[in-house]
């Protein structure tokens, strides 16, 4: 065990924070949460800067625009950018944090060459079309059909809760390519250009009052078969690669930001019961940061332990608990969201125990895959 970072890691951190100091003043004014045209531009402009400076996709292969750096440098990047209040990944979430990493592992050379550099440079925004009205937790029950017609698939069906669907160029979509196989064995993972004819996107208003996700209707959409990632009907395995990233490293930035929010609230918290609760939130986030470092250490040696499966569940619960404290401490000041980041966060984090696999599903997964208990019906 060693807490200190290597000299080269520290040099990297110092370079990065110098660079952030010079860049961030130009990104001080984030657009309104529901102004999607500006949000896309703002988030992708930032991504482009990160890319040009050589900090995008640090642990992705150099060949595709990454830096072949260690996971530790990637961790330092998340830590320093969040501490410096750099823009959040925003609309680049799907591309940089789970679709891209899935392509790195599973894509063909052509697919990687076409998409990875564009994801990193902010030229290509991705969305995720996994969930359907009747396939949420039971994702493998999805019904969107893909039928072969020559060298194309023809897609028909409906997706929902598609975050960034209305601003995305490309989507990672799950479709059923075999109607007769058992449900986990008839799925394929496709790269779907979102401007193809037959795609209709309808934004959905969320509890925040803005449109964070969309319904996507697919009517006779023709997609080249070469857009498939992995073998036909082997999409469930590829999906698990995507979910590993979505539920694993994707939360690091948020976690660091949670520590900042705790510190921001600290001066307002006077009541001893609330102080203790603040201490607990800080302890939870500190421990999750240690767990994240432990998971990264294990990913370096290849000895992956159960911790990586616990982070999402533990973080969601800790963050919501902190949100309750914010409401209580702010009292009647919590009744307006205007200029009130803590309360906006309280609402937003309601989604943490639902999105990317509800907490009940995470508990099923931990009890089955880590503890070896009998499996749920599936």
């Amino acid at each position: 065990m060693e807490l200190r970072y290597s000299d080269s890691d520290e040099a990297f951190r110092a370079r990065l924070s110098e660079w952030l100091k010079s860049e961030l003043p130009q990104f001080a004014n984030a657009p309104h949460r529901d102004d999607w045209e500006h949000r896309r531009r703002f988030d992708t402009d930032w991504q482009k800067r990160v890319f040009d400076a050589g900090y995008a996709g640090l642990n992705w292969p150099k060949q595709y625009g990454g830096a072949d750096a260690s996971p530790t440098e990637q961790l330092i990047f998340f830590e320093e950018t969040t501490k410096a209040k750099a823009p959040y990944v925003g609309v680049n979430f799907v591309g940089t944090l789970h679709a891209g990493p899935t392509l790195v592992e599973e894509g063909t050379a052509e697919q990687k060459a076409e998409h990875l550099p564009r994801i990193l440079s902010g030229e290509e925004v991705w969305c995720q079309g996994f969930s359907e009205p009747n396939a949420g937790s039971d994702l493998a029950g999805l019904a969107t059909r893909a039928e072969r017609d020559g060298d194309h698939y023809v897609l028909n069906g409906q997706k929902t809760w598609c975050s960034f669907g209305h601003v995305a160029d490309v989507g990672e979509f799950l479709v059923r390519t075999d109607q007769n196989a058992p449900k986990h064995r008839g799925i394929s993972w496709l790269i779907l250009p979102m401007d193809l004819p037959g795609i209709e996107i309808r934004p959905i208003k969320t509890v925040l009052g803005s449109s964070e996700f969309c319904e996507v209707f697919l009517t006779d959409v023709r997609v080249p078969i070469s857009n498939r990632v992995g073998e036909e009907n082997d999409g469930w395995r590829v999906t698990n690669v995507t979910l590993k990233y979505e539920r694993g490293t994707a939360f690091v930035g948020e976690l660091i930001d949670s520590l900042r929010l705790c510190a921001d609230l600290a001066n307002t918290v006077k009541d001893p019961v609330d102080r203790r609760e603040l201490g607990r939130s800080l302890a939870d986030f500190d421990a999750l940061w240690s767990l994240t470092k432990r998971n990264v250490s294990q990913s370096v040696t290849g000895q992956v332990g159960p911790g990586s499966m616990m982070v999402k569940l533990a973080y969601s619960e800790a963050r919501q608990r902190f949100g309750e404290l914010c409401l209580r401490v702010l009292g009647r000041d919590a009744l307006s969201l205007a200029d009130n980041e803590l309360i906006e966060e309280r609402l937003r984090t309601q989604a943490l125990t639902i999105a990317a696999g509800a907490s009940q599903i995470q508990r099923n997964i931990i009890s089955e895959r880590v503890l070896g208990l009998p499996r749920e019906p599936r």
Partner: protein
Amino acid sequence: MFLDLSDDQVALQQGIRALLSGRFGSERIRAGFDREMFDELADAGVFSLIADGFSWADAVIVFEQLGEFCVPGPLVGSFLAGGERITGVYAESTRTIEHIADLEALILLDEEKVLAVDLANLVAESLDWPLDPLTPVARVADFGETTLLAGIDPVEWRQRGAVLTAAYCLGLSSRLCEMSVAYAKERLQFDRPIGSFQAIKHLLADMAMRTEVARAAVYNAGAHLDASDVAGLTRSISVAKALACEAAIRCGKDATQVHGGMGYTWEVDVHLYLKRAWVLDTHFGSHEHHFDHVAETA
């Protein structure tokens, strides 16, 4: 930065585990702490790790295993005092002393000083029916004349004591999870293992999650003791002690629930683990005390 066990630490962990599982099974533990047990642990090097060139992180790994086996006795106190004598180490404000019949030294920590109690002339009334049957307790009205022990920093002792106690509690949680998962796989009701019922699976998943989070915090605190130049020592210790003690108590309660009526019996080890967790929560600051301290660092 590396927050996992090194190869040497894995070997250390396996070594101590092999020793404990060979000689410190449930029956032996239930016979209680005695001089022979102390000597055996001392011979294995448990109390002299630091003098033998091991790190505090290594000590954490050893104490985690002692917790896994619920080994009784004033282990942390003896470790702090150098391991030559069976030693109790307490906050000066306490009047309840554990294992007094076995103690060869009793040391009190106040804010600034470290004081040795004159054990030979100490009047103590042993209390019936201790909460933890393997931790006998006695009440002391007055410690009498004490001797100042120069050259020891009480703050340092409290910090180290908190981390080792947290490590021990982590071991308690870890074993409670293991016992409960095993029971849930084997106990049948409604013609199926109770571990197939979601209410039980989710309880177990939460136990495992809390234990893994506590583990990361405890290892982090151990590593901090070895790296005094890295900022954040006192907070890391409080995070570890608070989360590890709380996890052990909650795992103890959940393990009782998973075991049903068996969990309420003397025969099943669960109660010994839970009771030890309650005892250790009173050592070197309770989880509430440490949460409060974490808030002070914000």
